[in-house]
């Protein structure tokens, strides 16, 4: 009797947010799907049925191919770089060095900055100008005699997007470090001691004990960084504006919809983005819910 009342109250309390999510998330997803299957082009809504033509057009669109290539390169460099750097920083901080708190905040700070600010700063740092106008990192490299490191950054053909990923790594590796640090701290000291008594070297301890125990952290990091990189938009716009060599689906969606008024095609890009992120997120959520239920 009491439990039923409790339950009723619980549902009552969360119903406003459930309602809001139903309307503002799921209803709008449904509406976007409908728009993506329409011929809507121009300011006035046009829901004429168009089947999956918008999607087929996208897959045949050379610009969308550039987008997919850029997204893959960006995701690869960004996720791998952030995890590698984050893990290294976490291991170093975990050695119990002096001033750990200071370094921890130092590495976490970039995360407090918005992507727009990061983008503007890195736009200066990665200035590709040559000759007397050389500036930013290129100037630093030249002055240090490291001429081989001077490069065209984000204006490099094909791989330019990887330079943007560098800025994103700078921003997010501190966060990845925090994830790993929490994971490292959660590993009981006895396990390491037992391994040491058995004669394992430090490298072996990390390889065979720490890393396997950290795999849930790695998975979380992969998911969080992965879905961020699929949605990346503001960082690229801040560094390079709307330019095709650095195009990604989110920028394409924005430009084709609001500059070009191709609402149908824009909605199709949005739905494809949603699907690609869902493919990444949903198994993770199921896994988390399952492990929580088991606990």
């Amino acid at each position: 009797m009491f439990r039923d009342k409790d339950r009723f109250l619980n549902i009552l309390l969360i119903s406003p947010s459930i309602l809001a999510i139903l309307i503002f998330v799921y209803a709008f997803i449904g509406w976007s799907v409908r728009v993506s299957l329409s011929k809507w082009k121009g300011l006035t809504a046009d829901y004429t049925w168009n089947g999956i033509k918008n999607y087929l057009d996208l897959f045949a669109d050379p610009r969308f191919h550039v987008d997919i290539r850029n997204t893959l390169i960006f995701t690869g460099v960004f996720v791998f770089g952030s995890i590698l750097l984050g893990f290294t920083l976490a291991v170093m901080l975990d050695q119990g060095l002096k001033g750990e708190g200071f370094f921890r905040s130092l590495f976490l700070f970039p995360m407090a900055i918005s992507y727009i600010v990061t983008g503007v700063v890195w736009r200066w740092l990665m200035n590709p100008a040559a000759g007397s106008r050389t500036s930013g990192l290129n100037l630093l490299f030249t002055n240090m005699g490291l001429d081989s490191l001077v490069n065209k950054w984000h204006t490099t053909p094909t791989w330019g997007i990887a330079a943007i990923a560098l800025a994103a790594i700078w921003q997010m590796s501190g966060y990845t470090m925090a994830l790993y640090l929490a994971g490292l701290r959660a590993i009981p000291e006895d396990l390491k001691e037992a391994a040491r008594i058995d004669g394992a070297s430090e490298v072996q301890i990390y390889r065979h004990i720490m890393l396997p125990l950290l795999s849930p952290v790695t998975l979380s990091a992969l998911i969080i960084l992965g879905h961020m990189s699929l949605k990346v938009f503001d960082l690229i716009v801040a560094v390079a504006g709307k330019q095709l060599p650095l195009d990604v689906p989110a920028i394409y969606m924005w430009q084709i919809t609001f500059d070009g008024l191709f609402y149908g095609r824009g909605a199709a890009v949005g739905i494809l983005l949603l699907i690609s992120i869902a493919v990444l997120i949903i198994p993770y959520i199921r896994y988390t819910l399952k492990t929580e239920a088991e606990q």
Partner: protein
Amino acid sequence: MKKNLLALLSILMIASFAIVACGGAATEAPAMTEAPAATEAPAATEAPAAADKVEVFSWWTGGGEAAGLAAMQTVFSAAYPNIEFINAAVAGGAGTNARAVLATRLQAGDPPDSWQGHAGQELIGTYVAGGQIEPLNDLYAAEGWLDVMPKTLIPLISNDGNIYSVPVNIHRANVLWYNPSVLSANGVEVPTTMDEWFAAMDTLKAAGVQPLALGEQWTKMHLMETVLLGTLGADAYNGLWDGTTDWASPEVKAALDNYAKVLTYANSDSSSLSWQDAAQLVINGDAAFNVMGDWAEGYFRELGKTPKTDYGWAPTPGSSGVFQFLSDSFVLAVGAPHPDGAMAWLKIAGSKEGQEAFNPVKGSICARTDCDKSLFGEYLQSAMDDWSSNVVVGSLTHGVVANDSWKTEIDTALGLFIADGNVDGFQAALVAACASSGPCK
């Protein structure tokens, strides 16, 4: 422990809803108190006062544009003291934000009386297609504007014989800016044809001077439209946009080849430069030429530079006698809430007084050809001479000749071309773009 956490969370949530609710109440409260006052006040003074308003929507919120609008508003208030001028300007993103707000208001059936838009197909393709703006032929006839605006301008801002907007200012797109001392130091004359331009840039390149300064992608489209104009000539260039010039023709191929060649003279870091950065290279003597609209002149003046000594100008090669224009203009909304106020505003926007108030401040020239030249600087005076005597054609990048969808498709094709350098593929993509969003069938 877990229960406590849940309780805490629910309290937080309730608190946040309460805050949201309070926020709503807080914004409503003043409206509640103000509303009766607002409706009472005009009713008390004069009965038909509800019509004596005009809401003008623009993205002129800063710099010379906002100052120009304020100057024009002063002229308006002097001429129509009984009409309240409501400045509904929306800031941000060179109009991107404003256009999004406008689209929302139009879809909700709540249009402003008059709004700003680039004259030509950007307006026509969007708002005429949507049945949202009224033709203004009667106004043009009544005010005699057809006699004071260039004959070749009118077809570019019309659709099926109807004129849809009142141009307030004129900018020129086909301007070649150069550094006079860099040219004279290398014995180079100002080029008037494409071939002369290539020869000049070869000389400069051989002397170790950066021949051409170029910026990010939209400035490349701007350069492309001037090369198309310079190679094809005014008639064939106009034909590209009304379907009479075939995009697949060898002439267009030649123009695109020229464009590809021009790009080889540009700085390698172009995609990281804004238009200001690129223009500044010319001023600083780091590059010889730059193609940019004449708002660059306003920038040069801001930098404290002197015309003719620090910078020179000429029509882009191959386009002398042709004025490639772009313009900010105002429209009349279908179902405008205050049609009388809107007509009064449009009359001022097209009047000599209104344009003479706006343009010297904004750094552009009048759409009318009868403005007082003494109000303008040296460059603008020369532009006014050309405006009244030249053949007028429209700009692609700035919304005159192609609707937004077409322009976006051309922009995509251009971006792919810059990446792969394949002229034939570029031309094929342009042909396809004209068929899908332009007049080509």
